[in-house]
């Protein structure tokens, strides 16, 4: 389960960011921000060398001491970043993939909502609820 989920716009500003309530929420913002460079690198690499391997899922971006950061980029160049706890060893690649797919489905629904303005911060309750199901439950 994720500790932080972020949606980043084409122009690299946050559309949505949510993390588990801890003391240092800012640390997650920093982690996500740093990951954007890796995302950028991976996208430009896809254009050149790996012409046959054109997947939306970017895989593990980088591990830190406490967390693992995964990335995903849609065809419209919107980025999704999921941060998970490193201690959570049971989480497999497949599960991360399905989390991203769920996130993408919900994001599509938000985009197709006529009352949502593309580029605005996401305030949808349905999206919020879906993200909550993927976050670590803290009681």
């Amino acid at each position: 389960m994720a500790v932080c989920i972020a949606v980043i716009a084409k122009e690299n500003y946050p559309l949505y960011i949510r993390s588990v309530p801890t003391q240092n929420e800012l640390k997650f913002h920093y982690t996500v921000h740093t990951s954007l460079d890796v995302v950028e690198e991976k996208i430009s690499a896809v254009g050149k060398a790996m012409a046959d391997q054109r997947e939306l899922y970017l895989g593990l971006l980088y591990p830190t001491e406490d967390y693992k950061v995964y990335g995903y980029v849609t065809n419209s160049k919107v980025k999704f970043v999921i941060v998970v706890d490193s201690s959570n060893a049971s989480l497999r690649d497949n599960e991360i993939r399905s989390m991203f797919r769920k996130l993408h489905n919900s994001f599509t629904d938000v985009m197709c909502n006529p009352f949502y303005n593309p580029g605005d911060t996401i305030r949808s309750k349905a999206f919020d609820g879906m993200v909550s199901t993927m976050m670590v439950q803290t009681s």
Partner: protein
Amino acid sequence: MFLYILPTGSVAASVVRKSRSVYIVKFANPNKGRKIDMADDVLFEFLHMEIVSHIYKDQASVGGMDKDRATCVSTLEGMGFRVGQGLIERFTKDSPSFKDDLDVMKFICKDFWINVFRKQIDNLRTNHQGTYVLQDNKFSLLTQISSGKQYLEDAPKYLAYSCGLVRGALSNLGMDCVVTADVSVMPSCKFQVVIQKI
């Protein structure tokens, strides 16, 4: 509020205007009770015709003749733009990322066109410098209009929405462009896409 009534007497769709460019459409399930083939296509065509006539009627009551032609076209184009942005997000959800601009245009001609208009683009031409010409020999939004020369000058208002659709789709995929359409013989039309290079 408009209601679309099927020959059987049941309500097919209702349209409520929320604000200047937001309309809420509620479709009744056409498959409820009995199967009506192609009913959803017809609903889109009716709705589109109604939007066009509504916007032109609205503008005519305000004033000025030449000025409002341009604003009507841009209103329709703007509506299409937003719809195109949303649609492309949905259509490209499961497709792999695109190699280059030509790859994107092929997607528009095939998948996008089939999903929206139930047919492919008949001919795609390019000069490989950012200009693409998409030719549709039987464009579905023009098939209800007489194929003679009589209504040729009315054709552009039925194409503005589709131009916006294409522009919105491309813009969301990161290609800023200008889309124009022209008609020489009635049910066929050509969309010209010029990509803006920065």
